[in-house]
């Protein structure tokens, strides 16, 4: 799913390259490793000339639009044929999803439906069937778009990613993964291999909502995910995450803390939503003004908490 977010188009403009409707693909060497060890040695060997892809649904549009260009031959390392990265596993209380699992498989996975339904809810509203059939959650995360719809549900689920390199495996909390639009802690020689999500508990509900200018196949103007746990009618844990309102998808800590320890009554929810909207400073871009983003963020947070409350009844 190409995301021509404002950050990227600004870069394009400042360079003032020729306007070309559709650009040529670069010269490529295509690699399709079957083992993690092969993958890691390829990534290591090719350094900056390597690019890891899974579904290619971001890579190709980025080249066609000129957002990405390459001066040298590119070593394209396709991880979609690695069986070990193509699995959804549940171990004890963690759902582990391989980086090259397609969005469609996530959407249709019984494990995801049971253990992280909020993720399926988000994936259903992403892109088109054709794109979901090839695009992956690993790719959605690595592109580090502020509008990545899988990220808010993962953030509220306290998910982490597994990054592998020649040194071994590293666990990085998703809250620590993004460093800016299109940027993350991932460095050359590293590959994001898995996404790990603590499974949903009994006293817990989560909800995802997004708003775009159109209903279907639309990049979010704002997306919101909420997860709450309740005991004795009082909110125990609250997680609230928003997409497209900051350089990266973000959690809004003040609003979360406000909710914790309180009953989920209408007044509390309204105040929490107000605080969430207050905490963000979105930008205006081609998809929306910052005013609308703040305004609608409040509504989405409110509705998501209400939906959680409804689910917990």
């Amino acid at each position, binding site marked *: *799913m*190409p995301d021509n977010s404002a950050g990227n188009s600004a870069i394009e403009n400042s360079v003032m390259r020729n306007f070309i409707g*559709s650009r*040529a*693909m*670069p*010269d*490529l*060497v*295509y690699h*399709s490793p079957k083992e993690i060890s092969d993958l890691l040695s390829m990534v290591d060997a090719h350094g900056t000339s390597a690019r890891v892809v899974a*579904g*290619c*649904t971001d890579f*190709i*549009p980025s080249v*066609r*639009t000129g957002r990405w260009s390459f001066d040298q031959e590119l070593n*394209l390392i*396709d991880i*979609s*044929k690695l069986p070990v990265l193509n699995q959804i596993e549940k171990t004890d209380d963690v759902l582990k999803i391989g980086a090259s699992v397609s969005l*469609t498989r996530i959407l249709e996975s019984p494990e995801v439906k049971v253990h992280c339904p909020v993720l399926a809810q988000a994936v259903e509203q992403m*892109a*088109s*069937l*054709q*794109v979901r*059939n*090839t695009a992956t959650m690993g790719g959605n995360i690595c592109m580090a778009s502020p509008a990545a719809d899988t990220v808010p549900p993962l953030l509220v689920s306290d998910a982490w990613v597994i990054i592998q390199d020649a040194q071994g495996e590293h666990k990085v909390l998703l809250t620590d993964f993004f460093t800016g639009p299109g940027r993350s802690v991932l460095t050359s020689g590293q590959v994001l291999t898995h996404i790990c999500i603590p499974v949903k508990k009994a006293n817990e509900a989560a909800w995802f909502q997004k708003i775009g200018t159109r209903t*279907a*196949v639309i990049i979010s103007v704002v997306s919101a995910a909420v997860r709450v746990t309740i005991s004795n009618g009082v909110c125990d844990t609250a997680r609230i995450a928003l997409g497209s309102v900051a350089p990266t998808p973000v959690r809004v800590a003040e609003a979360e803390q406000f909710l914790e320890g309180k009953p989920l009554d209408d007044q509390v929810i309204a105040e929490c939503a107000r605080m969430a909207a207050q905490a963000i400073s979105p930008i205006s871009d081609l998809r929306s003004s910052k005013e609308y983003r703040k305004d609608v963020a409040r509504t989405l947070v409110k509705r998501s908490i209400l939906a959680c409350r409804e689910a917990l009844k």
Partner: protein
Amino acid sequence: MKMPLTFMLNNQQTTLEVDARQTLLEVLRNQGGMTSVHRSCEEGECGACTVLLNDEPVNACLVLAASVQGASVLTSEGLVKNGKPHPLMKAFTDELGIQCGFCTPGMLMNAYALINRAGDNLLTDQVIRKTLEGNLCRCTGYVNIIKSVHTAQKAKLAGEWW
């Protein structure tokens, strides 16, 4: 990087000489002669180049040809049997789910996979609309396309299908 690519194209084992930087769309049109796979946005937004890759609809413009090594690819040409239109195709002509015809082959492939997936469950308008959301059509307003899919499913349930 030139490479031989062997895959099932419309149920026939096919080997083509491709370049690693070619997309499946380019290869199907230029080397494979499958001109029903239409090129428009080249960015995965319009669905005009939809083909089935291992039975699932994908945008051929977003798939690297090199990655379909050993896979099976079905284009709308592959639905034609002995020169005869597939019942799905007949439904689109009967209901006039086709106007300019440019989005049609992609629409057909997505609908074909949908009807196959549905089995005996009757498709609702809502499911058809949601499934076809990535196939843009500017002529029909989608009304007759949805009708065509219903008609085609009826044909399938009546045993006229391949």
